[in-house]
């Protein structure tokens, strides 16, 4: 550990606001990059599964009717 | 069958290129507005700068190379976006795409015609605009020559954007977004040449760079344009 204590680490010799804001912005962008496709994939997977289930039910109904 | 010599292959292609060029030139000259309007646009935008920056001749002279080149770039943008639109809409582009002659060649003819009608006239009229901004007379030949070469570069780069966006409705603004970053080297070379000429430096190396850009573009860009046109036709 380079810093003596936590408040020193946050202040960073006066450069704290710059360093931390840079890291926070980067973190937000990275989270956005990761979350967007993951959410989109999950949503698609849910839709396709629902479609499959509906198709299966229709097939079952057809089988019973005949 | 005897092996065909080089001239036997090249000759008909040159005839085709010339024919296409004449076709586009004629159709361009039939509407004189298409030649005059970019020049009017240029005069009007140049007029805006003294109004916006103040009439101080010293400051205007300093900024003249940059202003003239940025306006040249903008006027090229506004004319480029209809470059292939006519041929695309009336179906001649599809005919050219399946013609035995390469599409690259006919698109090059279109770009060259555009350059001859807008770029060359612009560089001929450039001294007038230079005078409006107080550019020293000694710098005029460099201004004209740099615009002559530079407008060819701009027309070539613009033709790629035009080919990519020809099938898109309201593609004009999109074309600017695609093409402006690619214009950057041309702008820098052109402005540097004129600035060097103002301070009696040697603009030759910048003009050489413009020439190199134009030469490479003449060879490579028609290939990209023909690929892009085929995509636009299929879409």
């Amino acid at each position: 550990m380079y810093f003596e204590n936590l408040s020193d680490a946050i202040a960073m010799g006066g450069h704290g606001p710059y360093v931390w804001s840079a890291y926070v912005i980067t973190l937000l962008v990275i989270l956005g990059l990761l979350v967007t496709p993951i959410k989109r994939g999950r949503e698609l997977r849910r839709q396709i599964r629902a479609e499959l289930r509906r198709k299966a039910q229709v097939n079952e109904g057809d089988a019973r009717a005949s | 069958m005897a092996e065909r010599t080089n001239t036997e292959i090249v000759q008909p292609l040159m005839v085709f290129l010339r024919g296409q060029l004449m076709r586009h030139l004629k159709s361009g000259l039939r509407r004189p507005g298409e030649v005059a309007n970019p020049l009017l646009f240029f005069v009007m935008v140049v007029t805006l700068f003294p109004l916006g920056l103040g009439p101080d001749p010293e400051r205007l002279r300093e900024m003249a190379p940059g202003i003239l080149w940025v306006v040249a770039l903008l006027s090229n943008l506004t004319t480029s976006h209809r470059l292939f639109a006519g041929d695309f809409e009336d179906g001649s582009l599809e005919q050219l795409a399946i013609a035995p002659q390469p599409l690259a060649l006919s698109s090059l003819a279109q770009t060259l015609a555009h350059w001859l009608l807008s770029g060359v006239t612009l560089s001929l009229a450039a001294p007038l605009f230079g005078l409006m901004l107080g550019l020293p007379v000694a710098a005029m030949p460099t201004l004209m020559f740099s615009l002559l070469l530079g407008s060819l570069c701009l027309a070539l780069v613009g033709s790629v954007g035009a080919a990519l966006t020809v099938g898109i409705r309201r593609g004009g603004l999109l074309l600017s977004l695609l093409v402006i970053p690619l214009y950057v080297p041309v702008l820098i070379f052109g402005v540097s040449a004129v600035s060097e000429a103002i301070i009696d430096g040697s603009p030759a190396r910048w003009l050489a760079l413009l020439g190199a850009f134009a030469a490479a573009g003449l060879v490579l860009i028609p290939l990209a344009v023909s690929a892009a046109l085929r995509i636009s036709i299929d879409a």
Partner: protein
Amino acid sequence: MWSIVHKMGSPPWFYRFSGLVIRWLLPIVVLLLVVGAIWGLMFAPADFKQGNSYRIIFIHVPASVVALAGYYVMAFAGAVSLIWKIKMADLAMRAIAPVGAALTFIALVTGAIWGKPTWGTWWVWDARITSMLILLFLYLGVVALFGAYDNKVAAAKACAVLSLVGMVNIPIIYKSVDWWYSLHQPASIKFTGESTIDPSMLYPLLLMIAAFYGLFTTVMLLNMRADLMAQNRRASWLERDLLGED
């Protein structure tokens, strides 16, 4: 070797393979990012000239490096898609454009924040910053062009042509911006000094560069998988795979 290349072109194989890669790569990337950031923020010594503000280097440099490399990867994918008509290359190309734009954005913003305490200004028209801004425009152009086409197959091909033209142009842009800068700025502020970096700073930097490359790959694969699912809604291989996951 060639069998892998051929398999890459097959959607079912790629879907399964990318799922496996992501499952391993994502935790590694997160770990590397966390370790690299904590190392850079807390354990690396302060720079004796810039103080602690230099710690931004651990995100600024990796983002810039990967953003530039990403454009070449995108253009390469574009070339593959145009020449060999491999559909996966289409997907890769359109998956890269937003990642590249985001990384370029990170590089620009962190650069601006770093500039304020170090040179006293948020923004200067320095050669490297200007080039980076133009790179952002190039990425956004590809994103915009892709969005403008209704036919997404044609959109991918058009973006391939654009990214190839951009790739040829990038070295010319960089060189010309360099000359432009040296012409106007007689080196009053020197950004590119000869400097050797101490191992205590170099190791976390290398770690972060690796992490950003991994992040780039992960996000690219995630985007490609989502597109693949959207395109193959009714494909039997996808149905089997999704039902197996339950």
